[in-house]
């Protein structure tokens, strides 16, 4: 892969973790029940649903343990009740609640550097490019 260009700044490691967690949670959830991905994964890819869910569950816990205490505490509050803990902000609109985010929250700086949340719905936010 080509290396990141020098102008592209690193994403905050905690935000990266949240995004990874989100993808893992989506995979885990999709293997629930007898519909969804489980039959397709079993039929074409020999994946045992229960085994896969256990593996993913462990990985999710591992990543959750790496969240900083303040982020973990917010995450614990919002994660059980919603499918998405991190949502994109596109053109200043939070895609968790579709409310415009105050410019003070998004700011002029590169928000990839920060881990912030939407004041309206509480989701962690990241600015999608």
């Amino acid at each position, binding site marked *: 892969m080509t290396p990141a260009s020098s102008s*592209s700044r690193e994403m905050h490691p905690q935000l990266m973790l949240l995004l990874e967690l989100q993808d893992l949670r*989506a*995979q885990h959830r999709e293997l629930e029940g007898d519909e969804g991905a489980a039959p397709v994964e079993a039929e074409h890819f020999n994946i045992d649903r229960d085994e896969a869910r256990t593996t993913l569950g462990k990985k999710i816990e591992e990543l959750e343990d790496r969240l900083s205490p303040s982020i973990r505490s917010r995450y614990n509050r919002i994660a059980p009740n919603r499918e998405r803990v991190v949502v994109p902000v596109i053109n200043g609109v939070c895609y968790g609640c579709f409310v415009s985010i105050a410019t003070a929250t998004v700011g002029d700086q590169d928000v990839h550097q920060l881990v912030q949340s939407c004041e309206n719905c509480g989701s962690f936010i990241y600015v999608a490019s």
Partner: protein
Amino acid sequence: MKLRELFTSDSVELDLSAESKDDILKELIQLLGLDDKSDAILFKTLKRRENLGSTGIGKGIAIPHCRSLVVNKLRLAYGRKPEGVDFQAIDEEPVHNFFLIVAPPLEVSNQYLPVLGKIAQFAKDPDIPEVLSGIETAEEFLTLLEERAP
């Protein structure tokens, strides 16, 4: 939705240069034309899926797939590596043909699983590996899809 409509000629690469499983995944991801940060997240998510069990389904074909919030609609890419790469496939044979499928976490149209099933089915047709190896242009690939996986 027809499979062919989910590919663009930019998302087809008939001569992948990568030599390892990880590098193949990265090269496939690049065919989607996302930004660097999204590439990195998608790579991790695809790797986690591979760790559950290789998506190399045998006969030289692999279908790496996942949901990820880095895409906002279903995205597909196809890459071919004529010499083949070890992908820890089910039959332990080198893989030559890679179909990448990435869907957003929430999808209004619910296309992801049907498309995944359709590609897997297409890939299992006995003559497909040979037909794929003879393809010379992205357009030929898209035509093949249209004919064999309408």
